[in-house]
């Protein structure tokens, strides 16, 4: 059994007990424990079920490489699936539950897959479930989906908050072991700005666990003094619990700091994501131990040798009473020694090598540990827990020589440098025969923005393991850490054994699966990965990739470097999605742009419509009113009395300079240079394709100043468009622009009573004579400084009044107060749409969609034929745009008075070559007109203007059609008397 030892545990505080639950069972751990160490201390080795076969799974590692010990952590609005027990710090009240089983961890129906394992090899699903066709969707896929997946899906909104922080440094060091600390000391002492990150809560890495000696001190002492020294340096920032997640181009690194994962609900952000821009990145990310491939290597109780050491030394937890050590290198002997020194039993060390005479094997022998060289494990015995191992010759085919009872196996297949961060941006690797591992090829590093090397690796991440070499900065020759690769145990294992050798514990990929993939032609390492799912589990192959690769290369008869690796992609370990969304949730999910009258709208029941980042009132429904009824009321009131519209979102751009007229003549399709001071003109803008992109009223302010109104969504886009041409094409033209959209609140005062209201308020002459249609004037109204434009988008008598934004709300209030006697009512965007449609005015975004020209819309009068050039002129001349057969704007009236469907198409006889029904036009805007008490619509119809009075058929989504007559698009007040009043 696994249990807590009486003594030791460098990271735990035995005086602080932490009560927690696992599958509802109340257990006790200590402060400083990880969830994994606390589970082991409570003899809970079985922690989950594998993905495919639902085999029992135990804790195998002690760090982020753990593939098995994944739990549902917490519950309700703090439920977190797939949380790694090995990196979860224990806290009082922690709730964990195991995953991927039903009804229980110990008895899982899904384990039936295990008994069928022979029928479910790699890629079996590509070869079956093909017939009958409907069965995949209705039968097979649902079953597979239920069986797959791991943790539970959260149901509630996350209770926690997250944030980002930007940081900058000359040198970013990732990994707080000896190598990282030494790199930080060197860079810090050289005066560089340094950030040092460590993913765990503790500094020192492996050396402090293994009791190494560094510069004649114990590693523990060396680390303490190094950290102390770094803390005194103002140019050095230290962060632990902070994982270097990804390296991106130009020295950008993403790091994930766990602030309150171990103190949930304490009010701090749960996590903080660091966005670091570093001059240089040093990856001191250590190495990960590899499992060995022997039959039954996935049975709970089989663990990585160094992880066993971690549990004993750091947490005083023994994974088992009797632990068999199996290895191909010297390092694992330290595990045997550590266990024996802790008073535990190591029945045998099985060393696959023919000889083992290094210092550690010698020490082990001296302690009386039985060491067998040239031996391996033929098979591990046990079901939900190891009960023993069968020993065989490594060089043989698995004939059992001896069976030894044990309850744990500590395995070591050598070490793989953690080269993820080196590789994220394209750093290349070379295969080290000495280390049997891929190491960074320092001749082919990832490149920074200036072409220099962006990342370097130190310590174990570079394949340098000896602290002396790390401190001295020398490359080790690797002799001391040389290993004999063992990719399969025993070497000649028959298929029966190979099909029980696990490579990927979580995804259930075995040696036989990789061999099958190779045999079937999935020869590329990426093919094999994808065919077998090797390395695609939540550990992203940290344990399995190299072993799988080696098996593949053997199967192909190729060398490992020729087979190559799969691509390393960020993040190094999975990162909480909420953390990557940062602060952007709820109210601050996106900026909300507010006009000065925004609060008034909100308080007066506005039903909102998002328009870009603005939100505009769609209508103001009253109690008991539907939105449609509210819109109709607003339309009628505006037509008959007085409507008030918050038009502040309209874009307002000042264009000034000696060349401003010339510039606007290029920008607009019509002439603007000849607009008289004091007057307004409607203008159109096209892109270079000749398609309409924006429209609005331009006012000439003075000799060299124009004010251009744009659509609400268009202000920033059009301002950018102007600057683009001024900066990049016509840079010698003397023109300045300024976007003053937000400087002004703008109110449209619309309706027969509009003038009455303004005259009542008083302050300037707004009579027809003093301020005729399409003119503007500065003045004051009710004591407010205003600029009044006589323009109309409704066909009504209308004043658009601009007022400094800081007076906007007060001015709006005043209009309502003073306007009450004239029937003043606010109206929203939908009423605006109906009003303009009744008048046949086009709306950018409704009549246009990026493929419509001004000529299509009958706006030829606003397209200058005199100008030699304007943006879009050449584009419009292209054959397809100049085609006389194009669909053109007309009005549409249904024969029965009904309202046409939004987006309906006009159908034409027959079908095209692809069997699609022919069409001859489409509806662009369609409304019920409360003024005319019938449906009105605008649409683009083939040769439309030449077909007045003809009836066309518009389709319905359910298959029928509606007949409509082609009419003039101006439905109301065709002579324009109301607006000119």
């Amino acid at each position, binding site marked *: 059994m696994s249990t807590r030892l009486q003594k030791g545990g460098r990271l735990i505080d035995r005086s602080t007990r932490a009560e927690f639950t696992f599958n509802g069972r109340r257990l006790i751990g200590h402060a400083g424990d990880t969830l994994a160490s606390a589970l082991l201390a409570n003899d809970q080795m079985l922690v989950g079920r594998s993905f495919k076969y639902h085999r029992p799974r135990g804790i195998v590692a002690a760090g982020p490489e753990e593939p098995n010990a994944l739990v549902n952590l917490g519950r309700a609005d703090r439920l977190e699936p797939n949380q790694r027990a090995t990196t979860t710090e224990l806290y009082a009240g922690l709730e964990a539950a195991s995953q991927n089983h039903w009804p229980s961890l110990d008895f899982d129906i899904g384990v039936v897959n295990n008994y069928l394992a022979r029928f479910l090899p790699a890629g079996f699903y590509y070869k079956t479930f093909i017939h009958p066709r409907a069965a995949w969707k209705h039968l097979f896929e649902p079953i597979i989906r239920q069986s797959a997946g791991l943790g539970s899906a959260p149901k509630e909104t996350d209770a926690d*908050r997250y*944030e*980002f*922080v*930007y*940081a*900058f440094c000359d040198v970013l060091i990732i990994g707080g072991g000896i190598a990282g600390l030494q790199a930080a000391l060197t860079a810090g002492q050289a005066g560089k*700005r340094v950030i040092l990150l460590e993913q765990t809560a503790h500094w020192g890495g492996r050396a402090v666990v293994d009791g190494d000696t560094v510069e004649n001190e114990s590693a523990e002492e060396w680390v303490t003094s190094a950290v102390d020294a770094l803390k005194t340096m103002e140019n050095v920032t230290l962060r632990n619990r902070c994982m270097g997640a990804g390296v991106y181009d130009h020295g950008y690194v993403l790091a994930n700091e766990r602030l309150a994962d171990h103190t949930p609900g*304490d*009010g*701090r*952000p749960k996590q*903080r994501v660091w*966005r670091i*821009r570093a001059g240089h990145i040093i990856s001191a990310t250590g190495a990960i131990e590899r499992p060995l491939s022997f039959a039954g290597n996935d049975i709970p109780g089989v663990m990585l040798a160094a992880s066993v050491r971690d549990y004993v030394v750091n947490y005083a937890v023994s994974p088992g009473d009797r632990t068999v050590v199996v290895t191909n290198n010297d390092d694992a002997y330290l595990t045997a020694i550590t266990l024996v020194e802790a008073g535990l039993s190591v029945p045998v060390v099985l060393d696959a090598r023919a000889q083992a005479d290094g210092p550690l094997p010698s020490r082990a022998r001296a302690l009386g540990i039985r060491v067998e060289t040239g031996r391996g494990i033929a098979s591990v015995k046990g079901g939900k827990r190891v009960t023993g191992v069968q020993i065989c010759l490594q060089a043989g085919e698995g004939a059992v020589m001896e069976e030894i009872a044990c309850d744990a196996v500590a395995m070591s297949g050598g070490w793989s440098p953690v080269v993820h961060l080196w590789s994220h941006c394209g750093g290349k690797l070379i295969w080290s025969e000495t280390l049997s591992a891929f190491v960074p090829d320092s001749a082919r590093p990832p490149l920074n923005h200036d072409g220099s090397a962006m990342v370097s690796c130190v310590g174990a991440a570079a394949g340098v393991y000896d602290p002396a070499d790390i401190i001295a900065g020398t490359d080790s020759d690797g002799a001391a850490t040389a290993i004999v690769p063992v990719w399969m145990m025993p070497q000649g294992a028959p298929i029966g054994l190979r099909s029980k050798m696990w490579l990927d514990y979580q995804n259930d990929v075995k040696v036989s699966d990789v061999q099958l993939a190779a045999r079937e032609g999935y020869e590329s390492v990426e093919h094999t990965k994808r065919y077998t799912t090797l390395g695609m589990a939540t550990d992203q192959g940290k344990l399995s990739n190299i072993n799988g690769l080696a098996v593949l290369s053997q199967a192909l008869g190729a060398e490992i470097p020729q087979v190559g690796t799969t691509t390393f992609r960020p993040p190094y370990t999975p990162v909480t999605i909420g953390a990557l969304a940062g*602060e*952007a949730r709820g*109210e*601050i999910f*996106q*900026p*909300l*742009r*507010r*006009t000065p009258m925004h609060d008034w709208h909100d308080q007066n029941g506005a039903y909102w419509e998002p328009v870009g*980042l*603005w939100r505009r009132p769609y209508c103001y429904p009253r109690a008991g009113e539907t939105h449609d009824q509210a819109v109709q009321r607003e339309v009628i009131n505006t037509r008959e009395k007085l409507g008030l519209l918050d038009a502040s979102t309209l874009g307002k751009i*000042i264009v*000034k*300079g*000696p060349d401003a007229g010339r510039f606007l003549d290029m920008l607009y399709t019509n002439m603007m240079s000849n607009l008289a001071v004091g007057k307004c003109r409607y203008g159109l803008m096209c892109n270079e394709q000749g398609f309409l992109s924006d429209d609005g009223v331009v006012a000439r302010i003075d000799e060299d*100043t124009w004010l251009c109104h744009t659509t609400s969504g268009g202000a920033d886009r059009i301002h950018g468009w102007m600057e683009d041409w001024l900066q990049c094409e016509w840079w010698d033209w*003397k023109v*300045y*622009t*300024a976007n*003053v*959209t*937000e*400087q*002004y609140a703008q109110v449209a005062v619309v309706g027969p009573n509009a003038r009455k209201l303004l005259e009542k308020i008083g302050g300037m002459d707004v009579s027809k004579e003093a301020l005729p249609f399409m003119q503007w004037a500065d003045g004051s109204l009710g*004591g*407010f400084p205003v600029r009044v434009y006589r323009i109309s988008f409704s066909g009504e008598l209308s004043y658009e009044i601009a007022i*400094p*934004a*800081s*007076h906007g*709300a*007060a001015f709006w209030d005043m209009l309502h107060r003073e306007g009450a006697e004239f029937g003043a009512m606010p109206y929203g965007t939908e009423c605006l749409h109906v009003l303009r449609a009744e008048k046949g005015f086009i709306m950018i975004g409704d009549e246009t969609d990026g493929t419509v020209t001004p000529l299509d819309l009958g706006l030829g009068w606003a397209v200058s034929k005199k100008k030699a050039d304007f943006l879009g002129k050449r584009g419009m001349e292209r054959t397809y745009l100049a085609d006389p057969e194009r669909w053109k704007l007309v009005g549409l009236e249904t024969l029965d008075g009904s309202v046409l469907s939004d987006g309906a198409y006009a159908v034409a006889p027959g079908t095209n070559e692809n069997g699609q029904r022919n069409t001859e036009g489409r509806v662009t805007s369609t409304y019920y007109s409360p003024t005319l008490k019938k449906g009105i619509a605008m649409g683009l119809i083939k040769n439309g203007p030449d077909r007045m009075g003809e009836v066309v058929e518009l389709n319905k989504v359910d298959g029928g059609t509606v007949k409509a007559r082609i009419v003039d698009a101006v439905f109301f007040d065709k002579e324009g008397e109301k607006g000119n009043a």
Partner: protein
Amino acid sequence: MHNPVSALGGEMFEGFATIREVGPMGMITLRCKMDEKPLATTLKKLGFSLPDQRRISHGKDRSAGWMSPDELLLILPYADVAATMEGLASGLAKTHHLAADVSDARAMFRIEGEKADQVLAKLCPVDLKTLAPAELRRTRAAQVAAAFWAQDGGYTLVSFRSVAGYVMGILRHAAAKGAEI
């Protein structure tokens, strides 16, 4: 005459740093080539001094910030805007320029406290340590445009008025107690 109101009416938040919306503040966007001779003299006459690239120069109750090679942001008491606009118009009458009153198009915030820099570090992709004294930095605060500079032991940040509520929201989030870096 009515009193102008700032975007948030002087909203305040006390976290590990103090956030205050301030204003209304007079602001003028002045577009003009910096080497136009009348510019420096006109500015001087109006109580401003021409700032260097990416700097803000402070006068008695007014400042001039460098926004781009041909753009300044003049900051001054709200009540003085009209007179200053007139002064610019006359001083630069023969110089190609554009002056626009943007007092009401902006919102201004003060971020104060020992750890005020941490608030900005969470929102702006800017290396605050390498910021020169009196450097005006135009950048992004989370998802919106912003400009800031160090002043009086804290920072002054300017954003567009329409997003003042959003900016206050992100500043609150960044300055919340317990979220010190």
